[in-house]
């Protein structure tokens, strides 16, 4: 502080730490820091003492021990012989899957409901109001339990598909089975599969990578085509016909790929107790997904409605004066402007979805909270380490989401010049 321009020459007095505004904030911060450090030390000291008293240590070694329990929905290789960290990873992927699916559908449902709530159709508007109010004012946990129960009770058991005159039958040419254990849909199979890419922690199918690569190439090629058409149009005023070229660009490589990989669909069929083959979307996933979608959708609907109402009437009248149809007015004029109002509260709704996935245990969906925070903690007795790890994971997910959304927000924000 020696460089500070000091007009008064009567030197430094201790009381200046408190009375002089130049020093006061530093004094306060130092006091605060000391208090904070003392509190932190106190907590850590207590923890160490308590651990000692219990004869426990603080180590994450339990993560490498054999887990011993099975998980039904696993996106990566896992069995009861796998270590606990793998169970944690399986749970983490399940959490992320559920959160991603729910964010997408909740947005769709929310925007639809928000728009319909402003519909001129009296009945529809009232129905949407009822929907929004019922879901907003009853706890999510109750909805999850109710939806899970409704799905269990109202769908047929696999048994109903059995026999000469089954009580239920599969949908869409025997390709989809809707049961109270979940929905079985066809899975993609490859007779000439390229095998898997071993990333050490988990495997990634080469087939998937190749398909993504080919699709990406198609999109890029198509973009080049359109750009070219644009240039031609700008130069000559006539846009060349491109639709059949686009179609070719997409269809030919994909058809070639399908043939090269020997792609076909594996249909689910009733075998033994259950349907075998196909991809099994479990009831717990669907119930959580649906519950999070409709619950958060109700909140998003309110946000969307507020966003739309915030756009002045002049905008829609101007659009109408230009001769746009009502649907076009909504999608071209109102929604893009409303988006700027809608996005910030939307970020917190996405965060809420992610955090609310932790209720999955109520229906037995094996997310991170049920694997690491549930069975693992329970079997190993490592609640301190397990909870810390789990909180940290949620924190990282939340921060990543809010960072990504903030980036998006600043990209659509009204550029003020």
């Amino acid at each position, binding site marked *: 502080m020696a460089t500070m321009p000091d007009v008064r020459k009567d030197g430094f007095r201790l009381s200046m730490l408190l009375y002089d505004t130049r020093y006061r904030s530093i004094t306060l911060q130092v006091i605060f820091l000391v208090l904070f450090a003392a509190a932190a030390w106190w907590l850590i000291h207590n923890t160490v003492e308590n*651990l000692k008293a219990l004869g426990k240590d603080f180590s994450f070694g339990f993560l490498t021990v054999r887990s011993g329990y099975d998980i039904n929905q696993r996106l990566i290789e896992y069995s009861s012989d796998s270590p606990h960290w793998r169970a944690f990873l399986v749970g983490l992927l399940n959490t992320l899957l559920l959160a991603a699916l729910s964010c997408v559908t909740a947005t769709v449902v929310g925007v639809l409901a928000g728009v319909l709530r402003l519909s001129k*159709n009296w009945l529809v508007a009232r129905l949407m109001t009822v929907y929004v109010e019922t879901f907003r*004012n009853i706890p999510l946990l109750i909805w999850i339990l109710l939806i899970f129960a409704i799905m269990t009770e109202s769908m047929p058991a696999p048994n109903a598909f059995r026999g000469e005159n089954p009580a239920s039958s599969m949908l869409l040419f025997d390709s989809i089975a809707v049961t109270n254990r979940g929905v079985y849909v066809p899975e993609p199979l490859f007779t000439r599969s390229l095998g898997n890419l071993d990333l050490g922690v988990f495997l990634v199918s080469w087939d998937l990578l190749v398909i993504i690569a080919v699709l990406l190439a198609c999109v890029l090629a198509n973009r080049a085509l359109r750009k070219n058409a644009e240039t031609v149009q700008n130069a000559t005023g006539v846009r060349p016909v491109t639709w059949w070229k686009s179609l070719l660009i997409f269809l030919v490589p994909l058809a070639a790929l399908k043939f090269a990989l020997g792609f076909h669909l594996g249909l689910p069929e009733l075998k033994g107790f259950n349907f075998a083959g196909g991809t099994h979307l479990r009831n717990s996933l669907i119930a959580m997904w649906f519950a999070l979608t409709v619950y958060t959708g109700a909140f998003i609907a309110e946000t969307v409605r507020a966003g739309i109402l915030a756009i002045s009437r002049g905008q829609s009248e101007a659009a109408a004066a230009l001769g746009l149809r009502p649907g076009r007015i909504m999608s071209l004029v109102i929604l893009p402007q409303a988006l700027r109002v809608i996005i910030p509260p939307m970020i917190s709704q996405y965060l809420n979805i992610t955090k609310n996935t932790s209720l999955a245990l109520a229906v037995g969906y094996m997310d991170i909270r049920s694997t690491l925070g549930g069975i693992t903690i329970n079997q190993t007795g490592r609640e301190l380490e397990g909870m810390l790890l789990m909180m940290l994971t949620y924190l990282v997910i939340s921060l990543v989401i809010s960072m990504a959304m903030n980036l998006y927000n600043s990209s659509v924000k009204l550029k003020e010049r």
Partner: protein
Amino acid sequence: MAVTFVRKEMLPQQPPPSSQVGPVRWVRENLLSSPLNIFLTLAAIYVIYVIIDHVGPWLMNSVWNAGSLAECRQILAGESGACFAVINDRWRQLLYGFYPSDMYWRPNLAMVLLLVAVAPVLFDKLPRKMIWFSAVYPFIAFWLLWGGSLWLPLAVIAGFAIGYAVFRGLSPMTNGALAVIAGALAALIWWFVAAAAVSDVLQSVIPLGIAAVPSREFGGFMLSIIIGVTGIALSLPLGIMLALGRKSDMPLIKMICVGFIEFIRGVPLITLLFTASLLLNYFLPPGTNFDIILRVIIMVTLFAAAYMAEVIRGGLAALPRGQYEAADALGLDYWKAQRLIIMPQALKISIPGIVNTFIGLFKDTTLVVFIGLLDPIGLSNAIRADSNWNGIYWELFIFIGACFFIFCFGMSRYSMYLERRLKTDHR
């Protein structure tokens, strides 16, 4: 030249065509104005039909008086119907938990007084003096719900009096900040050293109190309301501090506040509840052990404080800069400016947000079922573990859901009313 017809008198007014009046017009305009609208109307009618068709008969057939599910089934004789007898049998438990039934007047009174206490906050037409009752209310409620000696809450209130007396006594001699610190210290010393002992002594000299009820007996909606209301009430001061800290120009304080807020907002409530139930004992001195409901209230308070801080930060941001500058121009110091100019306005703007936070928190109290507390959902599990009601499902959840709905819907209507009123204020 032919004389053209010239009308001499006005025609009598015709009624508008039938398609342009009354219900027909309303239906045409509101339900059938375009093909899309017709489709939507039909879809909506179908949805309503399906719901009524599925739930209607079941509700109409409800049984309200039976001793067990088996008895219900007997009465229904194979027909589908709801067995609301379980609500008839257990509604007291769902509302009050295990609170002694001859003392139900205490939570009831506390609830009524709660309404009286929040009234001056929510409706600004009431006399300002009532705010004093709001300040004393927490002690009354604590005493009513937990019971025990009246001296304990009185001793706590005495702490405030002592603190204030010290402050008044010192403030002429020294400057304000020191007096505040001394007053706070005096109050803290009183609370942590003397209050419990003094109230015990007074209790033994002049016994004054009502039967104590341990918090173990709390349950059902009473528990949800207690956790929700205490959480919000306690988180308000904490939230104000955090919001101010976040806006502070002292980097260290700002950093800590931001860190705290973002941490709490980044993790699910359920992990905080697990911390309350599994981990809090690690963080406290060995041998300390206190009630799980208190631990839950502490964690819920911290949780709500982070959200409250964001709501209040919004209120602070919405305040025109002129207000801050005017306060500075008047020569008010930071705390005086906050207390007299900024906070009263910022809090007023924030009330809808605070009510919404409360609704969210109140709904989130259902999560305590995961740590074994008997909130309404927890009680529904316990009730279903009784042989009489094993297997009952929908009726309990419908009842619980309906109660939550009434409560939350009422509050959200109130916050909407406030928002509307505040809007007109600022135009």
